[in-house]
């Protein structure tokens, strides 16, 4: 049965590429919508001359740094908001306002604040990741069933025990969801920042390709982005499944797909 599904998936991917190919010549202008074989060629070319690695590494580096910082502070702040009513009442309104300001819009501000160097990229990525993580963490921490805390109290758990052994495991699935969403936003942030002001990175490569009228390279960049995204998402899902399956059992329904 599994093979049947795998073959359908493979066929679909092939069909997609096929449709792409055909439509390039039949419908679109091949100078604007590049056929897959050219994209593949370009990808190979830039892999060979090291350009691919250079750009991917630049973007990856930025994402990792920004994501980790954003995750640490996001989980910290989210926990505080989830635990303490005062924090929630103080911080939620401005956060609710700010969450509507998409990371893309922040790029110019980041550049003003931190210049054209790495600092502004990190800032944008931290901003992109910290907001969803704060909200999901706060939701998970604050949503710990009261009955569970009471059960632990009856069994002699002190404040610290309750936090580490009850609140944290209960909130974990929510935190994980936040981390996954944040990764998507991190990619968005880095691409936006690189498109507007950078001299390396996947976003930069895409933008530069357009400016230099290299459509094949532009498509190659976009394709690359897609593959990286799929790859990292799969990786995270796999890692979490293996490492954290115990704690994910508390998840009831994962409603809300981004």
């Amino acid at each position, binding site marked *: 049965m599994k093979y049947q599904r795998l073959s359908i998936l493979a066929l679909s991917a092939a069909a997609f590429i096929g449709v792409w190919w055909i439509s390039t010549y039949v419908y679109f202008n091949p100078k604007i919508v590049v056929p897959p074989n050219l994209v593949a060629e370009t990808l190979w070319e830039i892999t060979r001359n090291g350009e691919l690695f250079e750009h991917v590494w630049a973007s990856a580096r930025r994402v990792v740094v920004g994501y980790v910082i954003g995750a640490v502070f996001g989980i910290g702040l989210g926990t505080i908001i989830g635990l303490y009513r005062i924090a929630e009442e103080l911080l939620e309104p*401005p956060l609710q306002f700010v969450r509507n300001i998409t*990371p893309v819009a922040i790029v110019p501000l980041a550049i003003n604040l931190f210049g054209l160097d790495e600092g502004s990229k990190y800032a944008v990525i931290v901003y992109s990741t910290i907001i969803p993580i704060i909200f999901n963490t706060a939701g998970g921490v604050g949503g710990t069933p009261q009955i569970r805390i009471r059960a632990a109290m009856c069994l002699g758990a002190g404040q610290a025990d309750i936090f580490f052994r009850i609140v944290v495991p209960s909130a974990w699935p929510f935190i994980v969801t936040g981390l996954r969403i944040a990764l998507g936003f991190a990619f968005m942030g880095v691409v936006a920042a690189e498109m507007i002001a950078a001299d390396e990175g996947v976003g930069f490569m895409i933008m530069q390709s357009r400016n230099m009228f290299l459509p094949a390279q532009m498509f190659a960049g976009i394709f690359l982005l897609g593959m990286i995204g799929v790859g990292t998402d799969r990786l995270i899902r796999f890692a979490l499944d293996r490492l954290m399956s115990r704690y994910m059992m508390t998840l009831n329904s994962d409603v809300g797909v981004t």
Partner: protein
Amino acid sequence: MNLAKIGRISLSMLLVIGVWWASSGTIFSEMIVPKPWDVMKQFVDMIESKELFVHITASFRRISVGYVLGCTIGLVLGMVMGATRVTRDILTPPIEFFRNIPPVAMVPVVISFFGIGELGKYFLISYATTIVMILNTAAGVSATPRIRVRAAQCLGADQWSIFLRVVLPSAWPYILIGLRIALGFAFTGIVASEMLAAQEGIGFLIMQSTNILEPLDMFVGFVLLGGFGLLTDQTLRAVIGKLARRHMVAIGR
């Protein structure tokens, strides 16, 4: 929304504005982070000069068209995708692929293809919206409890009736959540495309501010984005609340 709650929210916002005011001119140069009062004045000026109106209507128009278009297409495709395992498997590779490409990345392609006209913006926003709607709708449709379908079959419902009266209502909460998430992405899409290829609009306002060294414009833009985003999100939530009540589903935070 009682008085006490409004009071607490106001207090919180006042505190934030206080921190903002204090940081401007001290930690941050006023050329980068202007004082709140100045931003307010600029805001009022722009209303008077009708400039604000131009930007807001432009962005609003683009979002509306793109969002409605995208949601419609997304809904239909999502239902198809979620309907059977086969359709899901067939549609998953392309959807999975595109979902991982942020709308921002598509802007250069869109510009190449559509130029810097309005069509490109409509397309981009629709694109972002559609992907989200497909995913959420498909999730909702495929999550229809099989037991409900069987119950309907026992009661003599044909395929079409089952779809309309069992699958759709069951998927409704997911669809509604999708609408909310999609709105957020629509906003992202509009800002991205306006920042990179437009002559008016909120995104343009923000981007332009760096070019003409007018930080006030940027912050007016932020206020607009935050404000409209909040407004539309809360409105959508209220509408969803009304519509979903019948289905007795608690939609999370």
